[in-house]
């Protein structure tokens, strides 16, 4: 997963490094260049002074050492010269035992020459005519102190650059964090949405985010609306089909047909098949499954009315208890959960002698639902058979069995699992494990 923060940081670092290095290098280069051209004029002056120090002597040209600056006398002073005349060469005393190498081109030398004691020399060569003879005068100056100070400037620059980069990064992190806060908020809201803690996203977001949030909200509303509409349509369809079916059931039990038991039996069987199939398919089509992220089931609010409904339907003295942590919300569609629990409890009430217990708990992986009864239970070897019954409708025993078909459909739509076990109460325990909704 790419993080915007990280990407921005990497981009900023790269950009600052390139620009900073380029800037530093250019300024060093410019500094060096201007210093050299400044030193060049000094060296030119020196060369001319040297030229004037050459005097005509009795045996040709002589260098008048009295006219030379003292720094040419002191060894390794950093100021050196060399004068090449045809057949004659003068060297400054300061060179001592080292050599100032002649160069091929006149003017300031691009490359720094090697001097004594690892000095780097900036060298100027001037070509002159004196006393009718061509002369090449080399004047050199130790450039090492300049190099040193340049390096120092570079070091200071680097340190300041790194510090600036660090500060900028921190600043950028803070800015980005600030700018992305609405995004983070939206992310949190989406998480809440998935846990069923809110129904839609907050619309108070920056305009860049508004289309996204608006679209998500629109999709949520649309999905909910579609679900409602299709449930309504299914309800209407069911109504349209089931009422005539009720008429047919009534007709099939008419007095006249009592005389024709075979036809009556056949009729009733077929009608029952239609009813079963229709009920199952309509029930399955009503399921919301996982499509509605904002849906939730509020245990405290829904369970009491479900329990009293069951008590009214069964009317026997069944002690129906439910246990769920106060405020527990299942992040699932309300109608789906009601359908699941209603069928499970209805079933348990049918078989129980006197006691039915519902427990809902949250676990690390999601939710766990137990429905226990103290009825006859199901023998261990028959449990898997009971569960697999209802995979195919025509295998179902009509009107009997556990009515687990729709329960299985719901659990499957949720990606959960269902198991039948021995209950502590003595009867059957149905255990359903549901995963927490997978994060998008």
């Amino acid at each position, binding site marked *: 997963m790419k993080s915007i923060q990280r990407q921005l940081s990497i981009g900023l670092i790269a950009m600052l490094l390139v620009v900073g290095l380029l800037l530093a290098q250019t300024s060093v280069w410019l500094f060096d260049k201007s210093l050299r051209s400044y030193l060049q004029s000094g060296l030119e002056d020196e060369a001319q002074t040297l030229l004037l120090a050459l005097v005509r002597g009795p045996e040709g040209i002589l260098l008048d050492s009295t006219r030379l600056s003292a720094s040419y006398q002191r060894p390794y002073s950093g100021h050196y010269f060399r004068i090449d005349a045809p057949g004659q060469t003068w060297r400054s005393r300061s060179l001592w035992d080292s050599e100032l190498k002649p160069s091929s081109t006149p003017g300031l030398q691009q490359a720094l020459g090697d001097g004594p004691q690892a000095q780097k020399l900036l060298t100027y060569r001037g070509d002159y005519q004196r006393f009718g003879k061509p002369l090449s005068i080399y004047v050199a100056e130790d450039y090492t102190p300049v190099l040193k100070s340049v390096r120092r400037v570079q070091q200071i620059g680097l340190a300041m650059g790194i510090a600036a980069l660090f500060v900028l990064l921190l600043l950028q992190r803070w800015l980005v964090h600030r700018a992305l806060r609405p995004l983070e908020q939206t992310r949190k809201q989406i998480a809440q949405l998935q846990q069923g803690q809110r129904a839609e996203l907050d619309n108070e977001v920056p305009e860049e985010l508004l289309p996204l949030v608006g679209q998500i909200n629109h999709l949520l509303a649309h999905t909910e609306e579609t679900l409602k509409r299709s449930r309504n349509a299914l*309800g209407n369809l*069911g*109504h*349209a*089909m*089931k*009422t*005539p*079916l*009720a*008429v*047919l*059931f*009534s*007709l099939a*039990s008419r007095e006249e047909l009592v005389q024709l038991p075979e036809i009556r039996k056949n009729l009733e069987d077929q*009608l029952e098949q239609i*009813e079963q199939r229709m*009920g199952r398919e309509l*029930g399955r089509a*009503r399921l919301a499954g996982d499509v509605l992220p904002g849906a939730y089931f509020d245990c405290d609010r*829904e369970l009491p*009315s*479900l329990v*009293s*409904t069951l008590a*009214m*339907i069964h*009317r026997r003295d069944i002690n129906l208890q439910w246990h769920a942590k106060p405020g527990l919300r299942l992040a699932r569609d*309300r*109608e789906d959960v*009601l*359908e699941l*629990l*209603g*069928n499970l409890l209805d079933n348990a009430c049918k078989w129980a002698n006197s006691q039915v217990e519902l427990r809902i708990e949250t676990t690390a992986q999601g939710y766990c639902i137990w429905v226990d009864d103290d009825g006859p239970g199901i023998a261990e070897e028959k449990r898997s058979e009971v569960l697999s019954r209802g995979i195919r409708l025509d295998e179902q025993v009509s009107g009997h069995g556990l009515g687990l078909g729709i329960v299985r459909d719901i659990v499957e739509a949720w990606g959960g699992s269902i198991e039948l076990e021995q209950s502590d109460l003595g009867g059957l325990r149905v255990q359903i494990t549901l995963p927490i909704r997978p994060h998008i």
Partner: protein
Amino acid sequence: MRLLLVEDHVPLADELVASLSRQGYAVDWLADGRDAASQGAVEPYDLVILDLGLPGKPGLEVLQEWRAAGLSMPVLVLTARGSWSERIEGLKAGADDYMSKPFHPEELQLRIQSLLRRAHGLANQSHIEAAGLRLDESRQCVHRGDDEVDLTAAEFRLLRYFMLHPGRILSKSHLADHLYDGESERDSNVIEVHVNHLRRKLGRDAIETRRGQGYRFTGDMA
């Protein structure tokens, strides 16, 4: 027992009216929710069978209106919408029982019988029993000890009403209100005749006459 059936699907209503009449109930049939709301509030029905998907006014609203007006007759909701969330809504609105369509006629019959027994304080009995008599509603006869006494349809209707209200003084007009539907002729002499028939079968003192007040079922076998 006088029942109100509110159902807009005519073939089903026809079937139900026919089968309920065979079981000795006086049945009024209405198809519109608004009519049901007003008529149910006026006529003394012993039980109402209410469809939820009604023209005019939804069944749940009709039910809520009745309950808000303090009417406490048992109401059996009959609906094709059988999901649990809808059942809960129905019972919250004040229904006493809930049946999803399609249903077996026998089951409806049993539910009606048990609702009526419950409404008259006989919640945990599977038969109507009063003063040593046991009424067999499916065969429309009455047992006294080991003896079985056959009844005509009219006698069965009358005796069932008496046995659900043992010890209470019931006037002739009250009996007529609960034994005949809204459309049949009411002749109090007919009731007198049936009371006499019952006395002949069960004993003179089983039903006593309170002059100017009406009849009272004592079940006295003397």
